[in-house]
């Protein structure tokens, strides 16, 4: 294929949009924790931009998108060898690599929601970096890199299995390995800034247009279809969720609204370019139910998946992946029909993709966590957890007031440069 400037334009934008989703996720998550853990939670997402970003260029991309074998790519494109400005599809190959990088980044960041308010930051960095290479990259290869699920015809438009189910399974295991927060179930742990959570949800929705419609890899009608579904499905989820809230408690929670948006977005992700808009609307509406009740149920258990990655992403992604196998319509996607349109086999393939992703992700996440935990403590010490991870892990407060803060005078500036410049600076001190 030849390069298309229009497709390039759209993919430049899409990549930027998906990149924005990671700080947005930081705010979505950051608003849900207590003030004393705000920065730690936000930095869990932001750090992925650095560590997973670099790991992707170094090796992840090659493992995911080099043809390699059915189970994994090869190292032949490590350090972006041979990834240049030549066309990959209709866009520069490097741009395709960058677009995929943003997916690897946010998937790793998603997992953090299960382990907030208690994990040490160093081990966390090691975990997500390794995870993006040994868990994310292979699953991405299976579905999008020409791997075995692609050969079977599994449909995953923008990452229901690769991103959301994968992150949900990893979150479940990570939360179990780490154990619950010490206050969990004993004390009320409330979101310290719901506006940040809503801000995050708003920016996530915005970015998700790049995520889903960008997955068409061009400014095509298929992108438009994915886009419209990304508008309608979460709208429907939000409506249904709101009505369920009204019915159950008479009160429509904002945290619920923000959650509903994310659940709707997650659910439509695998289906976005494969189903018609009315199917998208229905899919969004249906996706509200399992996640709504899963959230309620989870809070009564000892499973401290703190920010409900399993209920929102794991379950939402599963519902979306399966409904893709039901509602897909060749008339819209030119590729495959779902069960409702005469092709029940598709649903079976979808189910297989779901199960395979869960098993692989859960197993390797368990191994990784245990491996890192064998080297160093995964959890912050109990008093550090009590004090809050912002102070204990980052040496900062999110909202410092400076009262009672006593400046530690640094040693006077040493060396000839300091000596030379200090008088100048002091001379400048006078009022103008």
């Amino acid at each position, binding site marked *: 294929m030849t390069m298309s400037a229009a497709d390039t334009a759209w993919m430049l934008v899409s990549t930027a949009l998906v990149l924005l989703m990671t700080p947005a996720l930081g705010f979505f998550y950051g608003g849900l924790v207590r003030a004393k853990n705000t920065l730690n939670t936000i930095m869990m997402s932001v750090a992925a931009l650095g560590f997973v970003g670099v790991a992707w260029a170094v090796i992840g991309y090659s493992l995911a998108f080099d043809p390699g074998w059915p189970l994994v790519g090869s190292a032949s494109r490590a350090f972006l060898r041979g990834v240049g400005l030549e066309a990959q599809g209709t866009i520069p190959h490097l741009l395709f690599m960058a677009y995929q990088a943003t997916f690897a980044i946010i998937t790793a960041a998603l997992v953090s929601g299960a382990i907030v308010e208690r994990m040490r930051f160093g081990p966390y960095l090691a975990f997500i970096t390794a995870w993006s290479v040994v868990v994310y990259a292979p699953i991405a290869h299976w579905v999008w890199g020409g791997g075995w699920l692609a050969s079977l015809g599994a449909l995953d438009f923008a990452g229901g299995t690769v991103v959301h189910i994968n992150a949900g399974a990893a979150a479940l295991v990570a939360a179990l390995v780490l154990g619950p927060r010490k206050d969990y179930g004993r004390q009320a742990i*409330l*979101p310290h800034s719901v506006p940040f959570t809503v801000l995050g949800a708003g920016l996530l929705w915005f970015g998700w247009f790049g995520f889903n419609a960008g997955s068409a890899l061009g400014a095509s009608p298929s992108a438009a279809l994915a886009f419209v579904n990304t508008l309608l499905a979460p709208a429907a989820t939000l409506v249904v969720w709101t009505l369920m809230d009204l019915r159950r408690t008479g009160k429509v929670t904002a945290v619920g609204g923000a959650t509903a948006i994310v659940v709707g977005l997650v659910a439509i992700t695998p289906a976005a370019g494969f189903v018609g808009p009315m199917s998208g609307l229905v899919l969004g509406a249906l996706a509200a139910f399992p996640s709504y009740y899963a959230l309620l149920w989870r*809070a009564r258990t000892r499973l401290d998946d703190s920010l409900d990655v399993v209920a929102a992403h794991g379950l939402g992604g599963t519902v979306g992946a399966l409904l893709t196998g039901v509602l897909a319509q060749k008339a819209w996607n030119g590729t495959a029909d779902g069960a409702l349109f005469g092709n029940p086999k598709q649903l079976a393939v979808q189910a297989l993709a779901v199960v395979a992703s869960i098993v692989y992700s859960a197993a390797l996440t368990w191994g990784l966590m245990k491996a890192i935990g064998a080297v160093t403590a995964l959890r912050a010490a109990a008093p550090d957890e009590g004090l809050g991870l912002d102070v204990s892990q980052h040496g900062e407060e999110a909202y410092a007031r400076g009262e009672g803060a006593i400046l530690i005078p640094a040693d006077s500036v040493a060396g000839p440069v300091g000596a030379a410049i200090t008088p100048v600076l002091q001379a400048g001190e006078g009022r103008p």
Partner: protein
Amino acid sequence: MKLVVAVVRPDKLSAVLEALFHEEVRGLTIGRVQGHGGETERVETYRGTTVKMDLSEKVRLEIGVSDHFVAPTVNAILASARTGTVGDGKIFVLPVEKVYRIRTAEEDQDAVTPVERAVRA
């Protein structure tokens, strides 16, 4: 000298301040607090977590006054802070041994007498 400590509703604060200023009370300190009394508790829900909120927002006033000023001060608060429904708050009158004005190191009576407008910075 006494210290009058009052806990009132936040939405009554403006009225209380006005009443106090009217009584020539010129110095006071307030702080945001939360109170528990006979108020109905609120239930809040955050995803699966349901909590009972036992505390309501209140404002705490602290007013150092000379002895003969206690009655007008208390009465001003009683009159202006009342709504008649549960949760209106309490007033405590505490004994004070000594008062100092930091700016001048004046003591007691003098320390709580308002300054002349002229000397202000």
